[in-house]
């Protein structure tokens, strides 16, 4: 009987689940350039390969994190270089539609319709993401439960707190079971308990999804990420595990934790402490 119990949680496997993936990396950028606004190159010659797991995108404000995430979400078109998502190049427009069905995206400024209930909004997003009609109610319920909002699902968004709205944003990002999940500053506005819960959710999602989390909080990276990408002035400064990042710093560097010291060591290099901020 115990044997059976274990197997009950598994669901049927379709041919699509068993098909081999035709790509090595979910995200692969070579010499990627992306403009923010008309002229400024916010991402300038980035080489990056990301696979399954949770990648923390760290960098100071203005480093180009949001621009990079928007390019990965196919909202911005690359100005140069190549960007392949799930083995398809984002520069051919014909591919966008199929590709976007498999991407989940939480923008930094998460805009929503205040008069919608949580369920209505997530359902609307599921419709925009072309989730098959028959699967929508279940997918919405699953997403809302995963972010712990099942008991508030029928309340209007304008009655929710900032942290809850952020969780609605995460729910809409995961409603289509994305292969690439892009979260821009997901921990903003969450209280410490909610942050812990989010890290747990990220770890769960990271087992079979390529999750990219942009953050400026070093401790989020330590707790939830399998991989760290350090990014400054549109270029890759460092890619490795959180352990590697910690190892890069020494006692002479600024910071309260090994990771923070690694962060400041890699970002500031020899000219330490340039500028007061």
């Amino acid at each position: 009987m115990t044997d059976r119990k274990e197997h009950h949680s598994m669901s049927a496997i379709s041919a699509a689940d068993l098909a081999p993936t035709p790509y090595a990396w979910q995200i692969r950028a070579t010499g990627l350039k992306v403009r923010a606004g008309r002229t400024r190159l916010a991402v300038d010659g980035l080489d990056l390969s990301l696979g399954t797991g949770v990648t923390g995108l760290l960098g100071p404000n203005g480093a180009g994190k949001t621009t990079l995430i928007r390019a990965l979400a196919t909202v911005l078109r690359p100005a140069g270089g190549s960007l392949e998502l799930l083995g398809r190049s984002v520069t051919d427009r014909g591919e966008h539609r199929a590709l976007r069905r498999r991407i989940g995206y939480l923008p930094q400024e998460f805009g929503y319709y205040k008069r919608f209930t949580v369920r209505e909004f997530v359902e609307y997003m599921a419709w925009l993401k072309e989730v098959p009609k028959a699967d929508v109610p279940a997918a919405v319920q699953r997403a809302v439960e995963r972010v712990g909002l099942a008991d508030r699902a029928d309340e209007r968004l304008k009655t929710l707190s900032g942290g809850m709205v952020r969780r609605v944003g995460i729910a809409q990002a995961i409603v289509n079971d994305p292969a690439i999940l892009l979260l821009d500053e997901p921990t903003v506005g969450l209280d410490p308990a909610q942050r812990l819960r989010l890290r747990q959710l990220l770890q769960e999602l990271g087992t079979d999804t390529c999750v990219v989390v942009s953050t400026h909080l070093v401790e989020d990276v330590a707790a939830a990420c399998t991989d760290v990408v350090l990014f400054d002035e549109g270029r890759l400064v460092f890619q490795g595990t959180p352990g590697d990042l910690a190892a890069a710093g020494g006692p002479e560097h600024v910071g309260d934790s090994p990771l923070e010291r690694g962060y400041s060591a890699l970002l500031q290099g020899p000219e330490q402490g340039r500028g007061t901020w």
Partner: protein
Amino acid sequence: MSAEHAAARLIDAYARGDTHIAADEVWALEAHLELCRICRDRLSAATAAGAPAVTAVVDAVWADLEPRLAATAPHRRLRPARWPRWLTPTMVPWLATVMSVTLFALLFDLTGTGPGHGPGAGRVPLVLLLAPVLPVLGVAASWSRGLDPACELTASTPRAGLPLVLRRTASVLAVVVPALLACGWVTGVTAGQWLLPCLAFTSSALALGGVVGVTRAAAVLITVWAAVVVAPALATSRTPLVLHTDGLPVWGLILALGTGAVIARKGAYAGPGALR
């Protein structure tokens, strides 16, 4: 038994909770059961026949659950309003504006107090002057970064693009055109005079929108129309030349060109270009 269904031996063993079935067999069987109604029916028959203990448990659970299920109100299926698929909530105020402008134009025309009614001059119905650009106001809100808070999210979804913009435009036209038809009927303006210019403006707004952004395109077209046609018409109290029935072939041409441009550049609406 056909090759696509589970063996009776396997189903019987499964129903009994036989621990001797290999894990991979259990897995395959359960995967099959999820998809196959026939085998599920066979399983329940096998359970009833061969595993009285399981049946007893299931019956006990049902007996326990049924009174509570009866007491629970049936889940209110909160269907999201259908209209978000056609209109965003942010477009509603814009449509309301369009409708009230139409209503005021109608009131002015009916009472004869509008600015177009100089003493002794010919009457220029305001409804006729405004009709061509009114839908453009609604279209402006259909795909706009400044007006729609969920715009960034929408732009990253597979449905973003021309079909979504057209769907929203169609819903604007579906509201505005009948209202204008009614107003035209009351004031004696024939639909032939404004319907084609109205559609031509809508298609040009979309075509231009593919390049500079729909909202910006709408603003430009409305300004040009106000400066070139509405203002002189109000000043001279004469029906502007462009709204005479002779002008219809030109409007038809503009409509065709606009539609052609939209179709030719249909890929542009999925990207950020049309969204400003």
